[in-house]
């Protein structure tokens, strides 16, 4: 798979197994001036990361094949350089936040969150 990116545009990789959610979030980010990449689980995200380097990763926790926590640990241990990662989860924040921060997450947002809240968070990162 080849991933072509527009130079100079901030890139966000969305990792979530819900295809509709991914598509809608990608459109929201594109409308806000980002370019979005999509992966359905941790393993396909790693495939993309072997070819390109996004500014931020938005990662879900509950996914088949390789879940969000496994991806966070992979990023912490094996990524070529640090990438800011925000966890977007439908689990209780208290359930995942501690472990996610230890694994390297920059923030944890609980679904459903407001789009302005996410964009504000992104603007402080990239």
């Amino acid at each position: 798979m080849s991933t072509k990116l527009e130079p100079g545009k901030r890139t966000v990789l969305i990792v979530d197994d819900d295809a509709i959610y991914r598509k809608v979030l990608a459109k929201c980010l594109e409308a806000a001036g980002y370019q979005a990449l999509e992966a359905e689980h941790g393993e396909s995200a790693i495939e993309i990361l072997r070819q390109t380097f996004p500014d931020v990763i938005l990662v879900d926790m509950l996914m088949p094949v390789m879940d969000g926590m496994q991806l966070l640990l992979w990023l912490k241990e094996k990524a070529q350089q640090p990438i800011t990662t925000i966890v977007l989860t439908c689990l209780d924040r208290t359930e995942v936040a501690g472990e996610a921060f230890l694994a390297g997450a920059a923030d944890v947002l609980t679904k459903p969150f407001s789009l302005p809240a996410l964009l504000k968070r992104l603007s402080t990162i990239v």
Partner: protein
Amino acid sequence: MATLHEMKHQLTGRLCTQLRNDLATIDLSWSLLGAGAVPQGSHKEIAELIQTKVRQTVRMLSDCQQYLSVETDVDDLERLPVDPKGLLTAAIEELKADRTQKSLSFRLMEPRFVCHVFASVTRLKELFKAILAVLCQDATEASTILIRVTQNDGVVAFDFSNLGFGIPNEVLQQYVLGEQTAASPELQTIQAGAKWVQAWGGMFEAYSNVGLGMHFTIHLVIFL
């Protein structure tokens, strides 16, 4: 009844989690339409995405309503959405307590979150325990029983294997998938379990290699 109550409690928790995800999609879609940030031509596509998500959500609620109904009684326990993670952990713990004489260890590899699957809430643990017991009996001294849980394409797969003496594969197939009466109560449970799994809509596989050990796999259909 306590088991049924626990099942409903777990299912409610899982339902809330899924609803948050679906609400997030619907909410983001409306934000996108409301912000006027997308071209008019994309409005129809976004509206269709919302409709698809709403349809999925309504279907899920309807399915859950059936299983959470007060009329769902112990007679319905044969095929329900169950949380297999707790059952597997409990089965391993009970086996650990029983099987210290061979210094066996258990290695469980599983995702942090495992989906609910269709099974009998009472029989799935019984089957897990029987498989683990057979693997322990066959295992070589101080070896490891491997349990690997993976989920993909609407199915959760439970792989159980050991390093053991094994039996000829044809014999195992006759015991487990054939009609021959199995030699031990645990193998008899596995023999019955292969049919239970089929009734739950899943798939059961068993394999043995003399001198290497045994391998059992249960594939169960994901509910939520």
